[in-house]
């Protein structure tokens, strides 16, 4: 078990190295000093190494860090989609939440949320083991349209921001958060009811519309 502060360092390293593609990340860049207690702990556990000024993640450290990032972003999803929180509070609470969601629980949450692939800000959520075997043991509260079973209904919770043009189109058709939808069939295309109309979409689009299941 590592400390909260250490987890945040790992998180910071992961985001800067793998997502922002920074060449070098120094402790001062993350707002800490090199001889800080948490850094020492991480060095001791073999999760990070110091190369000159730069902090680097080891193989083990990368796995650990990816997991922290995943938990943080799942927490954000949970707070916005299920607890309906808005604004800046989400990030702060998610920071605390991520430490509670330890392995096993994060998979449960991921299932609950229908295996989301992006956080509310649109950055990717690293994939978990459960995402690969999705749909099998899920007790779902929120699910993408593509994983809804025919006959199930719900309210659109959010639309994953992917391609702007595509987003524009489905929004213009009235596919917007708060609207009620019901899936009618899922093969060969996804057919759903929205208001008094029916729409057919392909899997790519169906995967981007997340629904809070009501029935």
């Amino acid at each position, binding site marked *: 078990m590592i400390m909260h502060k250490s987890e945040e360092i790992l998180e910071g390293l992961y985001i800067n190295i793998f997502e922002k593609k920074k060449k070098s990340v120094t402790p001062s860049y993350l707002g800490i000093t090199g001889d800080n207690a948490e850094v020492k702990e991480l060095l001791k556990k073999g999760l990070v190494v110091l190369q000159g000024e730069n902090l680097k993640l080891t193989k083990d450290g990368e796995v650990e860090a990816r997991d922290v990032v995943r938990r943080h972003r799942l927490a954000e999803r949970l707070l916005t989609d299920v607890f309906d929180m808005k604004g800046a509070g989400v990030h702060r609470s998610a920071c605390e939440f991520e430490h509670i969601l330890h392995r096993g629980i994060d998979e449960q949450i991921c299932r609950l949320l229908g295996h989301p692939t992006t956080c*509310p*800000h*649109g950055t990717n959520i690293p994939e978990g083991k459960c995402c690969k075997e999705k749909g099998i043991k899920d007790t779902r509260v929120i699910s993408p349209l593509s994983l809804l079973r025919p006959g199930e209904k719900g309210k659109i919770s*959010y*639309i994953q*921001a992917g*391609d*702007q*043009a*595509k*987003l*524009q*189109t*489905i*929004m*213009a*058709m*009235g596919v*917007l*958060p*708060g*609207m009620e939808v019901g899936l*009618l*069939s899922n*093969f*060969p*295309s996804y*057919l759903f009811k*929205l*208001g*008094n*109309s*029916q*729409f*057919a*979409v*392909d899997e*790519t*689009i169906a995967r981007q519309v997340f629904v809070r299941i009501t029935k």
Partner: protein
Amino acid sequence: MGEIKKIIIAGNPNVGKSVIFNALTGSYATVSNYPGTTVEVFRGKTKAGGEDFEVVDTPGMYSFVPVTEEERVSRNIILAEKPVLVIHVIDTKNIERMLPFTIQLIEARLPVILVLNIMDEADRLGLKLNIKLLEEQLGIPVVSSIGTMGKGITAIREKITGYAALEASTLKIVYDPAIEKFINDSGLDRLRALLVLQDDTEIINTLKKEKKTVFKELEPKIEKLREKYAQPLSYLIALARQQSATGIVEEAKEKKEKPAGNFTEKLSRLTMNTFSGYILLAAVLYFGLYLFVGKFGAGFLVDLMEKKVFGEWLIPPAAKFIENIFPWKAVQDIFINDYGIVTLGMRYAFAIILPIVGTFFFVFAIIEDTGYLPRLAMLIDRAFKKIGLSGRAVIPLVLGLGCGTMATMVTRTLSTKRERLIATLLLALAIPCSAQLGVIMAILSGLPVILFIWLAVINAVFITAGILSAKILPGEAPSFFMEVPPLRLPKLSNLFMKTYTRMEWYLKEVMPVFLAVSLLMWFADYSGLLKLAIRLSFYPLSVLGLPLSTATVFIMGFFRRDYGAAGLYDMSRIGLLTHNQMLVSVVVMTLFLPCIAQLIMMIKERKLGTAMALTGVVTVIAFGTGFILNLALNIFKIVL
């Protein structure tokens, strides 16, 4: 006298804009039951209160930020033409979903009236709206109508009469404070400021050109605003509009609708189930295409027109008449004999092509008006993805079986350039138009083996060309989304009107070409050019194993494929071709260059260079396939 006052009809696809346009102007814009019937702008005239107006029917659009080509056209017309009135037509049962567009029109400071159309379907669902309350909330006149029954048209006309007294709506959607601040500080009007925030490339580009400094100042502000929110701005803006629309509708609803679980709904689901859907498709093809168009149109009607009407009633007296007034053979030949206007041009156009095209358009009209096309699109989407198309492309491709020229224009409804290009290629290459199809069926009737091989070859070319172009052409795979309208019972009057209009369009399109080709052939025949052309085509034809006598047919086919096919029909009937030759020539003729009209449409829609490149590809594939086919027949010593 100023310019004529303009009224623009706008709204979502498939809400009945064209029906209302037709009722107001007395003209006919095609009406069907699928989104995207209207791809061109139609203009007509109407009178209201003693004043003349120009009425503009626009292709449907979902929002003010255009995604497809025809949406762009509609949006620009609304913004550029300064209408005295915009008639926003909606499908009443979906008012909640369509009202955000009304709000956008109001935001654009346009004088709007809202028409609640298709009221009958809303009634059937039990939905009742308080129109007075809607008028108050929106601050614009609201009229209810059932366009197909002519109800509500008088009321619309009354509102048109009172256009001058129309006051600007005071309805204002208040967005998030930061967005509002941006709009107020931007120095742009509310509409343009919002469009810029919604990433409208066209508006941004004009801004970049015309108000460079303004845009330079705005850019960082937009970026900051974007960073402030977790969601894209267009999403927030749309959400705010939707919330306001939902609020207005909730208040105006006197009776809520009940879900319909009736017979039509069950039937509708059957059309979209994989198994029953394909059975239905087979039935449509068999009864509609094979029996009605093939047997009745291409068989019975063509026979009647050709043998009776032309062969016995028209040509002999015409021949006598011509021979009496013109004693010179050369002049006689302009009208009759081998390449005469009457014997060749008119006979091909009226006796062979028209019955086939007419019956096809009739069947197609039924398919369109029931709402079957979007269902077919959803059924076929998965398969179409393999050839780089989305299910939506099924509409131009099926229409291409009627007329490739019309279909090439309809490719506008596809959302990416890549998809439009692939569809255009397939239309030019492997989709025979009804005229060709009918004539080919007539040639091959009674030869089921050849018919089968022909079908297999064309399908193979279609699939291979599709898969290859999907692989070669850069760009993203298309995505598929489509509104599936309810199944509706076609109105007989609309079926006939539509078939008639399309036949008229077709004749206007082909008659000049047919007559010109007749004349050209006559001239070529007398000047010796024809002999030269025939001699030149000796080599390419012999490679295909075809007799020299088919040369004229291919030369005619260059102008119109159906014309060439009709020529083949003539030859096969007098037994000039062996079965092998028949197969090869029919395959080449099917794949060969589209007619001149389609080529012109390709140039118009895809630009000259692309159209020429496509033409080159098509020619190579057509003759290449013919060559390989002939080679295979020879090597395996197959005599059909």
